[in-house]
């Protein structure tokens, strides 16, 4: 028979193996970069493990809620401490791509478009379509009414279609008339 801490850690390791990829992708949409997403994922898992005795009943729901809170903390932090832009403005090619991770991000058209959505719509779409949360779970985790979840999902999808259309139209034009 395993002792309690070892059993706890084994359960947690199993949960991380099954859920971390989805949480990371959700964090990638909610935040601005791969680095930020990985940091947020680690913090989410750490907070979940700290309260594992509570979280073990439904670790997916618990970690989803923690993730959205971590992301909101980062948004607030960014709002209070805006980054100084323009430091790399004149460094040529280096300014375009700051890291390999960012270069990889640039390939993710859908993620980029999702990031352009308003925060509530983005959170709702992430919860509903990436983290497989129900309307009720999404409402509870985000602290909004279920009606707001439904309307935000609907508007978000409409907005997403529109933005994707514009994105592909732009690409088609560029392909026909390269600058």
């Amino acid at each position, binding site marked *: 028979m395993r002792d309690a801490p070892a059993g706890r*850690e084994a359960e*947690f*390791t199993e949960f*991380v*193996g099954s859920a*971390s*990829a989805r949480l*990371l*992708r959700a964090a*990638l*949409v909610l935040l601005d970069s*791969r680095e930020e997403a*990985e940091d947020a*994922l*680690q913090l989410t*898992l*750490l907070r979940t*493990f*700290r309260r594992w005795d509570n979280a073990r009943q439904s670790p997916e729901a618990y970690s989803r809620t923690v993730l959205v809170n971590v992301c909101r903390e980062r948004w607030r932090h960014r709002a209070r401490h805006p980054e100084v832009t323009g430091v790399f403005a004149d460094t040529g090619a280096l300014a375009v791509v700051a890291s390999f991770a960012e270069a*990889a991000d640039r390939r*993710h*058209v*859908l*993620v980029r478009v999702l990031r352009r959505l308003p925060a509530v719509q983005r959170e709702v*779409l992430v919860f509903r*379509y*990436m983290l497989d949360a129900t309307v009720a779970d999404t409402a509870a985790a985000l602290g909004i009414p279920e009606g707001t979840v439904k309307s935000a999902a609907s508007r978000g*999808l409409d907005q*997403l*279609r*529109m933005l*994707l*259309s514009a994105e*592909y139209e732009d690409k088609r034009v560029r392909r026909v008339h390269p600058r």
Partner: protein
Amino acid sequence: MSIHADDEFSLRLAIDTELDDVTPRDGLADLVIARYRKSRRRRFAGVFGLFVVFAGIGVPIGVASTSGGTAARSGPVALRLGSYTLTLPDRYHLGDARTAPCATGAGAAQETAAVASGVCVLMFFMPPARPGQAGQDVPRDAKQVTVGRYRAWLAPPGYTPSGDGPGHPALVNTALVIEGRGRDLVIGASGLSRSALVSLVSAGLSGTGVHGLPSEPCRRLARGTSASPRSTSTR
């Protein structure tokens, strides 16, 4: 996969396809558990450190306040025995009557002591040679002095008075016997010169159990007659 508004829209499938290369690093669970252990150790160390700090501050204060030490006290120290009070400068603090360096070990009911750096002052009652008669045990060559308002005898070097209760002789190198009603009061000191003891007692002794001057014995002293029927025992 192509994602376009005109396609049949499946956001979940599109996201899964687009982000299938986004995977967490290997050993993430171990990393998180190690981070958790580290933070727990730090938290424990912080709590333990706070405990040590508070204990380091609180224990000396507590000890000082229970033993009358300098940390919790300010102002002069009053050494009390019976109806006598000897007020000492604030560098003294009350000592345990049983364990003070100069005590006889008779206990708090019999004697009281105060200590300062290198100095121990002890106050106890001398047993009367006859019931109700004081001043029977002062050595022959004791020097009579006036200490403030009171008459006293300054014991010669080597005199070691004993208290009223059980215990060994007081470990003092200077002793002053104050004449009292019924029983004499002995104030002894180690680490003080005779003149320093006289001035300390002159400045600080008060009480209702001692004769004030001019008293009958002192008037007789002033006339040049024997002050009191002193015995000659020297210990």
